[in-house]
């Protein structure tokens, strides 16, 4: 019925959505959308390095994004610049350096559009393994740090006072962010990964009354976006990333009607 590449893309997308759902909720709760952007922009540098050194893309992106996250923490300690300026600085510098390096790599044929916006044709069986195994590890670690991470998201001092070690949870979460970007880059493309994290979660916020519900709705929203997006990508021959994100945005708009209803009921 469908071609193999499409089945692979679907399986990959479902794997990605299962992980971006819960992580995306934390990105919204902790106000990390720009942090996510910075990490994903730096992923281009990771990709180019992977090509230069014939290294695994996901692993290379993971390492570079983690390094950028560490650099950010150091810069925050050592300069008086505000956080958003530092994020912008790192995001655009690493994107620029990545593009410059691509310019030097004339010996490799580069599908830059696929890199920036995702390409369902590019998903291999190896990628599937990386997404599903990597995704399972990310979810397992997230489950382990859920309590301290969530408690410190609600209130840092309560978590610290009651012995939950929020700083460690935050550091681990940063690594998880780098990891999800690394495994989802082929599907969604590096310019739109943050969209995959925040849009389904934002949709879920509109229709949820508890954190658990928000996580579940966020996963469902992500899954629907991937399925709708990939089918339309196949149908209209568009890049997979923009198609998935557009689907997610449509779901978000639908969720606004639910809010309207709730407000009406309250009044």
């Amino acid at each position, binding site marked *: 019925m469908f071609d193999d590449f499409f089945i692979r893309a679907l399986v990959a997308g479902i794997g990605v959505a299962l992980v971006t759902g819960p992580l995306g909720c934390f990105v919204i709760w902790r106000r990390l959308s720009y942090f996510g952007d910075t990490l994903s922009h730096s992923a281009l540098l990771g990709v180019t390095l992977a090509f230069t050194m014939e290294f695994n893309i996901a692993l290379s992106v993971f390492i570079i994004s983690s390094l950028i996250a560490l650099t950010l923490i150091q810069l925050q300690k050592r300069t008086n610049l505000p956080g958003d300026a530092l994020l912008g600085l790192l995001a655009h510098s690493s994107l620029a350096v990545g593009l410059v390096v691509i310019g030097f790599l004339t010996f490799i044929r580069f599908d830059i559009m696929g890199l920036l916006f995702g390409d369902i044709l590019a998903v291999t069986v190896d990628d599937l393994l990386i997404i599903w195994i990597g995704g399972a590890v990310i979810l397992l670690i997230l489950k382990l740090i859920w309590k301290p991470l969530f408690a410190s998201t609600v209130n840092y001092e309560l978590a610290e*006072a009651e012995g939950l070690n929020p700083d460690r949870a935050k550091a681990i979460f940063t690594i998880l962010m780098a990891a999800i970007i690394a495994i989802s880059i082929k599907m969604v493309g590096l310019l739109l990964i943050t969209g995959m994290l925040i849009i389904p979660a934002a949709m879920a916020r509109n229709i949820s009354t508890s954190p658990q519900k928000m996580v579940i709705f966020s996963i469902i929203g992500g899954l629907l976006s991937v399925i709708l997006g990939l089918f339309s990508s196949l149908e209209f021959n568009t890049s997979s990333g923009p198609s998935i994100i557009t689907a997610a945005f449509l779901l978000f708009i639908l969720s606004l009607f639910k809010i309207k209803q709730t407000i009406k009921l309250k009044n």
Partner: protein
Amino acid sequence: MSSNQNILVKLKDAGFKINDKWLVQGVSLQVEKGKIVTLIGPNGSGKSTTAKIALGIYKKIEGAVEKFTNKVGYVPQKISIDWTLPLRVNDFMVLTENLKSEIIDEALSLTGVIHLKDKNLGDLSGGEFQRVLLARAISKKPDLLVLDEPVQGVDFTGEIALYELIKKISDELDCGILLISHDLHTVMSATDHVVCLNGHVCCSGSPTDVAKNEEYKALFGDQASQILSRYEHKHDHIHTDEGKIKKN
């Protein structure tokens, strides 16, 4: 050395500064099982800072702090919760520890807010939220309770009931309590040890000792000192304290 085993947290010459400005300095105190230690002092005297030092929230401190338990319940003075989180009272109760439903219900009933269990935390009034905060802290059955202005914004009758509850918890759970309060009347009814702060420990001891202390009088004025001594006469009648009734 049985008394040593009862110590839950101990501060020795502890101090904390931000940008070279000392918030509090040279504080020594200890909280023992079943005892209530109260911090009093004017605004900016370092009461909350001292509590945060005891809790280990501030890390770069001068002096030493030793904590002998990890079962801690904390009611902070100020709490800013981000309402981007869909959080019900019930979710908030299990924030730092998973608890059985009965235990949650019991704690919420004790502080009189069981009817709010499924409400969104953001929809509560100040006093209601304060009761939820207290319920959360006691529901864990902690060894050490740190209560920073636990009844702020609570109505008058509720305030007395909650202070009685705090006293009862200290007896029943045999936990140590570090309490910060402005209400000298109520504080003194249950406190075992008072530490009067003003950037440093200005005096400390039993409520009676502190009331007689000259530095305390200088800090709070004669009236406050009268409150304490008058309190001594009305040991069992804190509910009907005249000044309080007028205030109501």
